[in-house]
C-alpha cells in the first residue's frame, strides 16, 4: 500500500476541483448566454498597483469600467489561513476600474463565514466584496446552481444596476432572490473550459489527458493498425506536445500541470519516463482489477493507492496494463 496516497483523498481532490471549475463555467454561461454584456475572462491575470500579479477565478469587464471579480473560496478554519484568504480576496478590488469582488462560498458554511469575517474585523461594511453562497440543487426537473447573498447584513453590493433586470444588485440585494443557473447552460462550457485558473490536482489532469488529449497523438491509420495487429502500443508524449495539442484546441493547460500529471501516471505504472524527458504512456483501455473500478480516474487512483513501487521502481510491461 502507498503511504503517499489514499483513494479517498485523491477522489475528493478530483471532485472538489471539478465542482469549482463548474461554478466558473456557470458564471461564464450567465454573462455570455443571458446577460450578453461584458467580456468574461475565464483565466484572468491582473497586475495590482503594488506590482503583484493575481489570478482570480474569473473577471467580467464592462465597457463602462465596471469589473466583477469572482473568487471561489474554501476558507480554512485555522485563524491565520482564514484571515489570509479573506485578505487575498479583498486585494482583488484593486484590479482596476470599479471592481466588485464576488466571494463564492459553499452554502452550508457561507453565512457563518461571512459573520466571522465581520466579527473578526476582516471585512468592513464598505469593502466592495459581496459574499455569495452557491448550492447545486437537483430537486427541480432540471438541475440548477443557485446563488444568493450569504447574509444581507452588509451594505456593500454589486454596482451593476446598469444591467437592469439582469443586475445582481437588483436580483440578489434588492429583491433578495436566489439566482438559478441551469447546469445545462454551464455544461456547454465544461468541454471547452475543463480547467480553471487554480492548479488542478494531478489526478484530474491525468484523467483529462487520458480521455481527451492522448487520443490526438495518434493518426487515423495508427488506430486501425493497432486494432488489426490486436495489440495496444505505447504512445510517446512530451509536455511540449501536450501543450501544443491543448493550445491548438483552445484548452488552457499549463506545462507544469501536464508534467505533474505525467509523473502521476508514471507512479501509477501507466507511463514510463525516458532519458530524453519524454514519456511512454500505456495508452489504451486500462485493465480492470477484480473488484476494481472501470473508470479511468478511479483506476489511476486505485493504482496509486495500492502501489508498492518506489518512484524509481520497475515498470510494468505494457501488455499487463492495457487492453482494447
Amino acid at each position, binding site marked *: 500500500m502507498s503511504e503517499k496516497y489514499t483513494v479517498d483523498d485523491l477522489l475528493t481532490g478530483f*471532485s472538489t476541483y*471539478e*465542482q469549482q471549475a*463548474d461554478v466558473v463555467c456557470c458564471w461564464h454561461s450567465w454573462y455570455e*448566454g*443571458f446577460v450578453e454584456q461584458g467580456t468574461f475572462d475565464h483565466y484572468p491575470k491582473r497586475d495590482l498597483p503594488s506590482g503583484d500579479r493575481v489570478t482570480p477565478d474569473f473577471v467580467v469587464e464592462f465597457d463602462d469600467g465596471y469589473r466583477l471579480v469572482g473568487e471561489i473560496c474554501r476558507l480554512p478554519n485555522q485563524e491565520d489561513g482564514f484571515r489570509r484568504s479573506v485578505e487575498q480576496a479583498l486585494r482583488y478590488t484593486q484590479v482596476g476600474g470599479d471592481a466588485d469582488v464576488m466571494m463564492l462560498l459553499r452554502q452550508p458554511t457561507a453565512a457563518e463565514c461571512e459573520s466571522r469575517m465581520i466579527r473578526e474585523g476582516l471585512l468592513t461594511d464598505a469593502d466592495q466584496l459581496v459574499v455569495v453562497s452557491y448550492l*447545486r*440543487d*437537483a430537486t427541480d*426537473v*432540471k*438541475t440548477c446552481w443557485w446563488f444568493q447573498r450569504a447574509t444581507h447584513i452588509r451594505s456593500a453590493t454589486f454596482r451593476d444596476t446598469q444591467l437592469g*433586470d439582469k443586475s445582481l444588485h437588483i*436580483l440578489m440585494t434588492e*429583491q433578495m*432572490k*436566489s*439566482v*438559478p443557473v*441551469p*447546469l*445545462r*447552460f454551464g*455544461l*456547454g462550457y*465544461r*468541454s*471547452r473550459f475543463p480547467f480553471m485558473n487554480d492548479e488542478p490536482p494531478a489526478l484530474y489532469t491525468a*484523467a*483529462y489527458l*487520458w*480521455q*481527451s488529449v*492522448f*487520443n*490526438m497523438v*495518434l493518426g*487515423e491509420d*495508427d*488506430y*486501425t*493498425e*493497432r*486494432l*488489426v*495487429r*490486436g495489440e*495496444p502500443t505505447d504512445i510517446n508524449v512530451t509536455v511540449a506536445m501536450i501543450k501544443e495539442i491543448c493550445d*491548438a*484546441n*483552445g484548452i488552457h493547460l499549463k506545462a507544469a500541470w501536464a508534467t505533474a500529471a505525467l509523473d502521476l501516471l508514471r507512479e501509477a505504472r501507466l507511463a514510463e519516463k525516458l532519458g530524453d524527458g519524454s514519456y511512454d504512456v500505456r495508452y*489504451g*483501455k*486500462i485493465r480492470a482489477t477484480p473488484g476494481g473500478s*472501470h*473508470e*479511468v*480516474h478511479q483506476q489511476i487512483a486505485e493504482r496509486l493507492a495500492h502501489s508498492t513501487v518506489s518512484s524509481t521502481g520497475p515498470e510494468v510491461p505494457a501488455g499487463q496494463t492495457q487492453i*482494447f
Partner: protein
Amino acid sequence: MTERLFDSTQSSFARDVWASASVLDSDALFAHAERHSTKPHFSMQTHMRYCDQSPLDLFERFGPHLMSIEARHSVEGGGGVARLRDDGRSLQGYVAIVPGSQSNVWLIATDMKASSEEYDRLLTPMLDRLSGRLLAGWMSTRELEESLLRLEQEAGCALAPGRVASKGYDRSSIEFLRHGSMSAVLEELRQRSLHLQSVDFKLLAADGREVLSGGVNKWYRVQYRGGASYAIRHYLLDALESRLVSHFAKVTVCHDTPNESRLTFKFDRDALMDRARHEKLVSVLSQMPRVSVCAFHMNPYLHVSVADYTDGSSVNLLSDAADRLFVIPGPRCTSGSVSRILDAIYNDFAPGMVAEEEDDKSEWAALMDTGR
C-alpha cells in the same frame, strides 16, 4: 496448404462471384444469389456499411495483419471480391463487396454460414477490426419495424415472421417468438417492453406461395435465402440504405466547433433519474469494447468523458435532466464513434433518439421568472 484443398470447399456461388469479380455490381451479385438459392441451405449475408472508401481497399490494406487476402477488383465502382484465408486452420471464404445505390454505402456479402468457423474467423474479425472505418449503423425498434412494414406494403405480400430475436433491459437473454403475423409480434414486443433485434421472415403472395425468404437485424445485416431478390433489394435494402445515410447525417460531427456543438439524445421515457441510473449508464459505457470512461461528475448531473480507441474519438456526455443526454464531440471525434456510443446506450441502457436541439434563449427567459 494447396490451392486444390481450398477449391474443393468453394461453393458454386462463390466460384461464380469470384469468376465475375471484374463486372460485379449489386445487380450481378443478387442475380448470382437468386440463381444459386435453389441449392439446399443457401443463404447470403449482406452487411451494409457506411464508408467513404472501398471496403475492398481497406481489406487489402489492413487485412494481411489478420489473414491471407487475395482481391479481384471490379472495373467500375470500386467493389470486387476478396478471398480470405486462414492457412493455419485451412479456412477459406469469399466476400463480395459492391457499392450500394447511395454514395458511401457498401454491401459486403458472403455465402459463408453465419456462425460457421469460416464466418467467425474470417469475416467477423475483419469487420470488427475495421469497425473504425467501415461504419455499422443501428436502427431503433421503430425504425426496424417501419422497414419491415414498408417491405410488406411495397411488395404487396404478407410478411410472415419466423424467428424473432428481442431483448429487454432487465435481462440479457434473447427471446424467440413465433407468431402468425408481424403486427402480432410487434404488439407483443411492445407490451413486454422488448426491443426488436432481428427477424427472419417469409413473404407470402396472395395465393399463399412463398415468394421471398430472408432476414434482417437492427445492425443493417440482411439475409437472403431465396426467392424474389428484386423485392429484398428494392423494397428492403434500398430503404435501409437511405436509412443508413440519414442515420449518419443525424450523428454528424461538426468539426468547426469542437467541444461546443452538440447533439441531444432524447430518451423515450425518463432514464437518468438518480445516481443509480447514472452509474448504470457509466457502467454500460465502460463495458463497451475499446472504450474507456471517466465520470467527471456522477450526480446530480452527469458528466462522462468517453475515449474510443477504435478510432481515437473523444466525446463528452452530459445530462442535467432525466429525459436527455447531450453528446459533445471533442476535436477528434467521428460520427462512427457517436453512433457506436448511442448504439450501446439504446441497446443496453434505455431507448431514445437523436432529437432537435432546444433553444437556450427562451429557456433563460423562462427561468428568470422562477427565481426564488
